[in-house]
């Protein structure tokens, strides 16, 4: 069967089971948009290509299936670079199709030409510039294979316009050999000797902690993790990337570790004699000063990417494997630590002394951002998906939203991409239309990608957005207050400019505002009653509110600063 390269691309995406593409057409990708009209694949037309990338990420993180974005060459491609970098940092499986100028024009500085495979070499797991129309199916199949196996990540396929317009004989790879990837070995069997060496460390430990990261979610290890933790009674900490992999309501869950982590989680890692590290990578936001991190702990490090082993912290036992496989190997009763009663009484003392707290809200306002998050959480159905941007609101959302299920927390971890929240929520809702999706956003983040609410309205994707509007770039403000002698430099944004309610309405959404507790409750109720269009609530929150606990950048986790309300108790 002879078809065009463009048809072959769409057919290949159908073969991979793609149900939705987030994208925006332009000159070089134009031929591909024609056969899209005849495809069963849904296309969500974004207003800016960065949004397409974050939507693909939100879709992938909510569903566990790879997200797909398609954009044109040149500026279309460069606009999506931030999202690609974000997906690379957080190991999110997405496939990005970019149009490229015609083969003969490559290298001539043609209109809307840019070397997107060169630009994204360092921020993709792999990328392809297709050079032969007959290779399109192979490139697409290889892209999905690479994006979703081993340590997942973004893969980009750059397609010159002339190839999209050329004829090819349709085929599709049916074996791994046909993908022609002789250097790609994403998984290896975990060495039994290492599994056993780790078991011995667990048996000998008195103060173990299960340090679980995004890899535990990626390998869908939540059932095994729950079973292992319950059987061994080892305390669990869930990093920012792992929130939801273990129920927050579970007594074994100490919460999030790190710079703004729960005191008990941070301190349990510090005092541990064994870190059972499951798909986490000793990020600087978790370790604080590396040389002072968990000084007495031996380290078991399970990661599917062996380059993570010994990168930051030398492991005593490094196991190259996905998390689930190792936890299954540890199902036996011989993997049981010593009596942990002393450890738990110590941990429980920390928990009782330093729970997460905030200043009690006053009825007349301004609102406490933490109270807003708790109120939304309490009124939301089970399984509600939460996305966020980056900054104070992100930390509060992670701290105060009770995550009970995997894939309900979607945020930008490694890259720290402001503006991630709104498009990620749209992608998540497109993938999980059955779920309520809230974006907990900041006013600074909202202004970066808010135009995608036009997309949400036009495409019938009714997300809900809570802007915690403190009129500042709040996290930067917090640092300037605490570490720059309150010298506020370029952080003020204004609560009224833009008018978020009018802006939401202009984008076809329902816009609401809340300045006190009564208005907050009413606005949340109203938002919960709307199911057909996106809702945006402008919550006026206290500018001076800061995120606690906090470990200052570069400081030891021993020097954790608790909330001022708790300081007299220290």
């Amino acid at each position, binding site marked *: 069967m002879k078809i065009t390269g463009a048809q072959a691309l769409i057919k290949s995406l159908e073969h991979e089971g793609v149900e939705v593409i987030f994208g925006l057409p332009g000159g070089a990708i134009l031929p591909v948009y024609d056969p899209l009209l005849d495809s069963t694949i849904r296309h969500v037309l974004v207003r800016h290509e960065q949004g397409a990338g974050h939507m693909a990420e939100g879709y992938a993180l909510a569903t566990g299936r790879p997200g797909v974005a398609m954009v044109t060459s040149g500026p279309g491609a460069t606009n999506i670079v931030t999202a690609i970098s974000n997906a690379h940092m957080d190991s999110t499986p997405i496939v990005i199709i970019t149009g490229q100028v015609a083969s003969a024009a490559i290298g001539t500085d043609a209109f809307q030409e840019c070397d997107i495979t*060169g630009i994204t*070499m*360092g921020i993709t797991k792999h990328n392809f*510039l297709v050079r032969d129309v007959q290779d399109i199916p192979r490139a697409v199949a290889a892209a999905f294979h690479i994006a979703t196996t081993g340590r997942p990540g973004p893969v980009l396929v750059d397609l010159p316009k002339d190839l999209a317009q050329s004829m090819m004989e349709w085929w599709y790879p049916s074996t791994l050999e046909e993908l022609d990837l*002789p250097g*790609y070995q994403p998984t290896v069997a975990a060495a039994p000797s290492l599994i056993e060496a780790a078991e011995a460390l667990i048996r000998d430990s008195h103060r173990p902690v299960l340090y679980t990261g995004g890899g535990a979610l990626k390998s869908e290890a939540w059932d095994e993790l729950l079973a292992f933790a319950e059987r061994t009674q080892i305390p669990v900490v869930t990093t920012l990337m792992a929130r939801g992999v273990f129920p927050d309501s579970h007594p074994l869950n100490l919460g999030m570790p790190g710079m703004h982590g729960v005191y008990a989680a941070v301190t349990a890692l510090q005092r541990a004699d064994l870190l059972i590290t499951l798909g986490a990578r000793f990020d600087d936001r978790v370790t604080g000063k590396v040389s002072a991190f968990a000084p007495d702990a031996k380290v078991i490090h399970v990661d599917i990417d*062996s380059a993570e082993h*010994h*990168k930051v912290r030398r492991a005593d036992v490094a196991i190259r494997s996905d998390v689930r496989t190792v936890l299954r190997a540890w199902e036996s009763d011989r993997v049981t630590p010593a009596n942990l009663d002393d450890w738990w009484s110590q941990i429980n003392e920390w928990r009782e002394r330093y729970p997460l707290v905030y200043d009690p809200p006053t009825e007349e306002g301004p609102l406490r951002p933490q109270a807003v998050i708790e109120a939304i959480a309490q009124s939301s159905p089970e399984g509600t998906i939460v996305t966020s941007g980056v900054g104070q609101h992100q930390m509060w959302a992670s701290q105060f939203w009770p995550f009970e299920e995997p894939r309900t927390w979607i945020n930008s971890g490694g890259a720290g991409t402001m503006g991630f929240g709104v498009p990620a929520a749209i992608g998540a809702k497109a993938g999980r239309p059955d779920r309520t999706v809230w974006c907990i956003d900041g006013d600074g983040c909202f202004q970066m990608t808010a135009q995608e609410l036009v997309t949400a309205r036009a495409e019938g994707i009714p997300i809900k957005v809570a802007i915690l509007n403190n009129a500042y770039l709040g996290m930067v403000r917090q640092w300037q207050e605490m570490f720059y002698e309150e010298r506020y430099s370029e952080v003020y944004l204004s609560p009224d400019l833009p008018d978020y309610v009018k802006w939401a309405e202009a984008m076809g959404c329902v816009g609401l505002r809340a300045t006190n507790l009564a208005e907050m409750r009413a606005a949340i109720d109203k938002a919960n009653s709307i199911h057909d269009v996106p809702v945006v609530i402008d919550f006026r929150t206290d500018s001076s509110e800061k995120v606690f606990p906090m470990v200052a950048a570069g400081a030891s986790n021993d020097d954790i600063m608790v909330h001022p309300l708790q300081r007299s108790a220290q």
Partner: protein
Amino acid sequence: MNTPEPFLGDVAHSPVRHHILSVMVENKSGVLARVAGLFARRGFNIFSLAVAPAETSARFSRITIVVDAESAPLEQVVGQLSKLVNVVSISDLAPKDAIERELMLATIRTNVDDRTGLLDVVGSSGAAIVDVDSHSVTLMLAGTPAACDALERELDNYETLELHRTGRVALPRLGKRASA
């Protein structure tokens, strides 16, 4: 390549400072950029790098990279390199277990009637004269990095107009084949 050092003649004299990685890659456009880019963004220093098609077929090339062992732990370099999809295999060649060679060309200013000393140097070093005109000669030496270093020092007594070294290529000594 944070601080690119195009070639350091003293590498051979301090064997602990460097590792030789023999990297088999798919012979596809952009592969060298992927490898070089990885070293650059991870802050791994390269002393030299040589690339050419390998024995297997036109599908593969072999890149011999001499890595500054002080810029990063070898396991990190190998771990990150092996994640490149186009990298097929990596052999870590300990200098004592490897046969290393490189090629050096040097053009020396010397008049026709004043070449006896230089010819002695050429003869004793195993180099060859590959080009001549009335006021200069071009020498070639294919040898160990140490031999190239030694000849370079000898040539300090002459006016060197141009000198170029390829960087080393290496294979495991027979009986020492090991793969990383």
